[in-house]
């Protein structure tokens, strides 16, 4: 590709010491992420996908290798600007919001830290963010315990938007949610990506989710990158044995089911994407 990648990893390696042994969680991985694309990282637990995410976010420094953002190497100690531009949506929306702080306070933090808007404007910015993720602005003063899992995940997404981030690392953002809510959150993410020109790094073990949202897929096994291909190509014609076994493990959908889904999705669209406050 000709355009400069927004994020690239060069020979990324990360070791963990467990007692006296050293375990190589991520082994010499290199990849590029283009602006506006959604790169899925799939693999079993322990394949190193979350470790890669943590290195991208600057939570762990790489043992060796480098990461660059817009062609510039990311330092081990991230600046506030890097923090602003690379954000995270976590797997568990129950723990990712502070139970003792209001929704507004959680969103305000991002605005305050990065000085977006003036103090007077920020309450309105919080309201706008909530609207943007399909929540009623009245949610601002509630505590996270008054929200459902899907609603909390929307707040977590709003928090990443509040940073005006360019790259969002989505660490299994839908795996703690039920299927219907999952579909809505994926749709919301896809809409936001187009609207804000976001770049997604979507970490998941769920290949059916990958097919819906990802442009390209990176398959990890034992800390190594075994295959990196366009989503369609990967599903049509996986080159690696391991990828083939992952795909064949996805539950098969019959033609009847596909038809049923088509009919059901029309009725679902009628009641809108916004969940009821009690849901």
């Amino acid at each position: 590709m000709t355009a400069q990648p927004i994020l690239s990893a060069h020979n990324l390696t990360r070791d963990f010491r467990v007692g006296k042994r050293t375990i190589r969680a991520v082994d010499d991985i290199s990849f590029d992420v283009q602006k506006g694309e959604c790169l899925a990282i799939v693999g079993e637990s322990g394949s190193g996908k979350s470790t890669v995410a943590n290195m991208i976010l600057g939570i762990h420094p790489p043992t060796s290798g480098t990461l660059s953002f817009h062609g510039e190497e990311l330092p081990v100690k991230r600046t506030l600007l890097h923090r602003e531009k690379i954000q995270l949506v976590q797997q568990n929306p129950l723990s990712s919001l502070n139970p003792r702080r209001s929704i507004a306070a959680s969103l305000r933090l991002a605005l305050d830290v990065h000085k977006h808007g003036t103090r007077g404007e920020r309450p309105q910015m919080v309201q706008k963010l909530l609207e943007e993720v399909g929540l009623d602005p009245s949610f601002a003063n509630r505590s996270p315990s008054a929200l459902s899992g899907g609603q909390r995940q929307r707040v977590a997404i709003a928090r990443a938007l509040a940073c005006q981030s360019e790259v969002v690392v989505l660490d299994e953002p839908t795996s703690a949610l039920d299927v219907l809510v999952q579909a809505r959150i994926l749709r919301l993410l896809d809409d936001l990506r187009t609207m804000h020109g976001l770049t997604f790094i979507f970490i998941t073990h769920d290949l059916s989710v990958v097919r819906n949202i990802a442009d390209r897929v990176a398959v990890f096994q034992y800390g190594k990158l075994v295959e990196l291909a366009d989503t369609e190509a990967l599903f049509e014609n996986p080159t690696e044995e391991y990828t083939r076994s992952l795909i064949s493990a996805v539950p098969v959908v019959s033609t009847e089911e596909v038809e049923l889904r088509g009919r059901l999705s029309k009725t679902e669209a009628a009641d809108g994407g916004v969940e009821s406050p009690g849901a």
Partner: protein
Amino acid sequence: MKRALTILLSNPLSVVGLTLVTFVVLTALLADFISPYPEHAGAVVDFLNANKPPSAEYWLGTDVVGRDQLSRIFYAYRVSLGLGVVVLAIAVPIGVTVGLVAGYLGGWADYVLMRITDVFLSIPPLVLALAIMGLLEPTLLNGMIAVTAMWWPWYARLVYNITRAQKVEGYVLAAEVIGAGKLHIIFREILPNCMPSIITKMTLDFGFVILIAASLSFLGLGVQAPTPDLGSMVSEGTRYLPDSWWLTVFPGIAILIAVFGFNLIGDVLREVLDPDL
């Protein structure tokens, strides 16, 4: 707030606790107005009425120099509560800060701060207080210093453990990834999650501080005469047992009321403040 009150009032034990504590606090605050003989709080001598048993005139009897016991108990509450407030107001912020910083930063800060805490925790509290009181003069101020020195490490331990557990929660990671400062994360994100446990422990400790202050003055190392104090009242009264029983029994009951009241509230408060309920 309304929910908290509903829970407190729905539990018979906490209603008793609340009543006792309200009684203690009110008598302490209003001692000047409700005491039958406010001047008896000081060095008053009235040998004509010395050592009188409870009567209509002196509800709880008089002490060996003829001072009204009821009035002296009200003023003693004022001293005890004042002591409790001052000790906790100093010990809690120190202990909580130590626990938060050690728990969140980890590494050498954890090692140094928590080993200091362990040293304090390994000394029996009353012995440490006695040692400090022995080194310094046995005054009310030194009594407070002694009790404070042995109180903060318990808060450091408590908050340290909660902080260690909260540190791995997603909201802390989220704040770090956003780029929030350490001070914000420690005091605005983690501290609010420690508050229910801290407040509960403070309520329970209020009773214990009163008790330990009474113990110290029982041993003659706390509040000095003529300031009224429950511990020294019991201590002096023991010399006149069993004949002048009112000299020890009533101050003893007064200690019991205060300590029991705070303990009852503390237990129920734990339920009220738990965020998961």
